[in-house]
């Protein structure tokens, strides 16, 4: 834990004025670079293509990278492989199949191959269906905050895209500009204020 050791050596409160985000970033980049590129565990290449495309429709690249740039598909693959229940995974994969069927029916080709407008139209439909589901469905929670019913496909897809994007390095640093060590507390300052230590 190089970063923490350095913090300790610098000692005390003065650390946080010295600790530039560049230095923090450099140490993180070094750690990230050691990770092997993701290989798919739960999704087939075709399913992965749909996830890549649909996550980018939900969070597109703008002045910052979108879901594709943040590799949200790799996060979703991990969740399906190691986190989701069998029921949740089945609902998710079935939903990807449904997206594919709808694309073929409406546009004559698969979701990943569809144009941006075509993909948006399909996602729009899923989003509207999710609204209806939320209004009607009485979600049942078991004792300790476990949802008993598997969430419908698009609820999972949308949720995992947001989590995967905003908790990525791109999401945290470029999009949200999260400071891990703010160094000071100010209760009520104009948005955009630089933190004074």
């Amino acid at each position, binding site marked *: 834990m190089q970063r923490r050791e350095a913090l*300790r050596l610098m000692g005390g409160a003065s650390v946080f004025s010295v600790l530039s985000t560049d230095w923090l970033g450099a140490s993180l980049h070094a750690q990230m670079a050691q990770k092997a590129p993701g290989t798919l565990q739960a999704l087939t290449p075709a399913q992965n293509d749909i996830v890549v495309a649909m996550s980018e429709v939900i969070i597109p690249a703008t002045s910052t990278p979108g879901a594709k740039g943040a590799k949200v598909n790799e*996060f979703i693959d991990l969740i399906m492989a190691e986190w989701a229940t069998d029921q949740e995974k089945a609902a998710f994969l079935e939903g990807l199949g449904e997206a594919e069927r709808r694309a073929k029916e409406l546009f004559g080709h698969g979701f990943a191959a569809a144009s941006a407008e075509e993909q948006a139209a399909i996602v729009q439909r899923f989003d509207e269906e999710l609204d209806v589901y939320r209004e009607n469905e009485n979600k049942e929670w078991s004792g300790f905050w476990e949802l008993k019913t598997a969430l419908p496909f698009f609820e999972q897809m949308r949720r995992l895209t947001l*989590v995967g994007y905003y908790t990525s*390095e791109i999401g945290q640093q470029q999009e949200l500009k999260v400071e891990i060590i703010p160094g000071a*507390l100010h209760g*009520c300052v104009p948005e955009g204020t630089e933190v004074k230590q």
Partner: protein
Amino acid sequence: MTSVKKPETHDAIVIGSGITGGWAAKELAEKGLKVLVLEAGRPIVPEQDYAEHVPVYEVKFRGMTDRKQQLKTQPIQRMCYACDEWAGKFFINDLEHPYTSDPGKPFAWIRGRQVGGRSIMWGRQSYRWSDLDFEANLKDGIAVDWPIRYADIAPWYDYVEDFAGISGQAESLAQLPDGHFLPPMEMNCAEVAVKEAVASRYGRERVMTIGRAAVLTRTHNGRAACHYCGPCHRGCITRSYFSSVNATLPAAEKTGRMTLRPFSVVHSLIFDSQTRRVTGVRVIDSQTKKALEFQGKIIFLCASTIESARILLNSATPEFSNGLANSSGQVGKNLMDHIMGGGAAGEIPGFTDRIQTGNRPNGIYVPRFKNVSNKEKGFLRGYGFQGGAARRRWTRGIDESGFGVGLKESLRGYGPWEMNFHGFGECLPSEDNFVEIDKDHVDAWGIPTLKIHCAYGKNEEALLNDMAIEASEMLAAAGARNIEPFRQKNPPGLAIHEMGTARMGRDPKTSVLNAHNQAHDVKNLFMTDGACMASTACVNPSLTYMALTARACDYAVSELKKGEL
């Protein structure tokens, strides 16, 4: 075993290194005693174990935790918010530490077994109790009277606050005495607005103040001020919040008189029927599984409320057939935990061009206002509110709909100010709530486990309802929109303020400990963790445990010097 080794002898043995064990170690060692601290869990090396600055993208499940693993090995621990993907390692493996509860009456026993115990992950809220609390049992005719009053403990609150460092705002309220505070943390825009609205609606009857927290707002006793990273429960490399690891154990270590022995699971205490004193401790080394014995002149049992009772119950002798120091029959009885989970949330309009910078590891507090100056019809005692306001960023998008550039641009900014109040209510002592030894089941070290019988009663349920109503009214007074009252059904234990099981009292026939936390039956045995509490008040108990520990250590050493122990 072939070789007979004479057990090591120490002036004092402290069992447990959590919030009270750490204090006992420091106080006894600083007063000149050679102290052995027995900790069941592993050592903690802050530079390796603390994880507060590890970014979310460096943990495998991005904060969603390894759910499958947790469901297998921490199905109970995972109910605690702090048992997250960073700090889950500070919580026990439930498979190694089994216990049972009654059908339909779950009890959430949240535990940390490592040097520092749960002081590593604690909530840091630090409040003094008042005579409203210490006189309550006597006035209501419930359980037994506390053998102490505020005046007995006030100087010891001063003493522990001066060492630990408690930030807070003095408010001159009889029900929540002021302490020796470091500067208070700032409230944010919405909290100030709610505070003012509450003041104008309720006057001095209800006061909203900043939380009093064992987090440093300036350098204090060689520890650095908080840097507002936020998640204290993952550790703190600058030692800015109080824990045994950050504060008391280093002080004990500095005396050169403390020996800290991790991996030492206490099985039971050794009692000498001739002297009627405890002479030592039976330990199982958790790494070698070997049984060991250690001798000491005095013993401080600080293993945590339920664990300390378990050790006494597992230490039965011919004289004490139902558990050591248990002539009263009260060991294991009167298990209590604050009733938690009633309150309300709502949106505070305005201030949309302003934000809070820095992750404040603290919230607001509304001291008890029920049954303080008037008498409620529906329930005894009362509750306080913790809570706070914040503007959510991307997480609010999960429950909304929409997608694309519009969603992304909206989530880059901040949502409205959302304010919440969460009540913590007093739990009445009851003999129906108790623990007993389960001879048929043992833990990973072969030690008999517990059956826990515990459920909230009518008074606690009434408090929970009232929390939701009053919190909603306070939000309404502040002009909040979309007010949502809530009344969560939490199992007892989950507030992690478990108390009782070896209560203090005036009469040896009805209590286990005297006014100095000394066992009525065994003069050289002291218990200063939550087990000693005769009632729960509605405020967080840790600061009171600290003060009681320092006070008991002072008494024990003076009695030891007089030859009374």
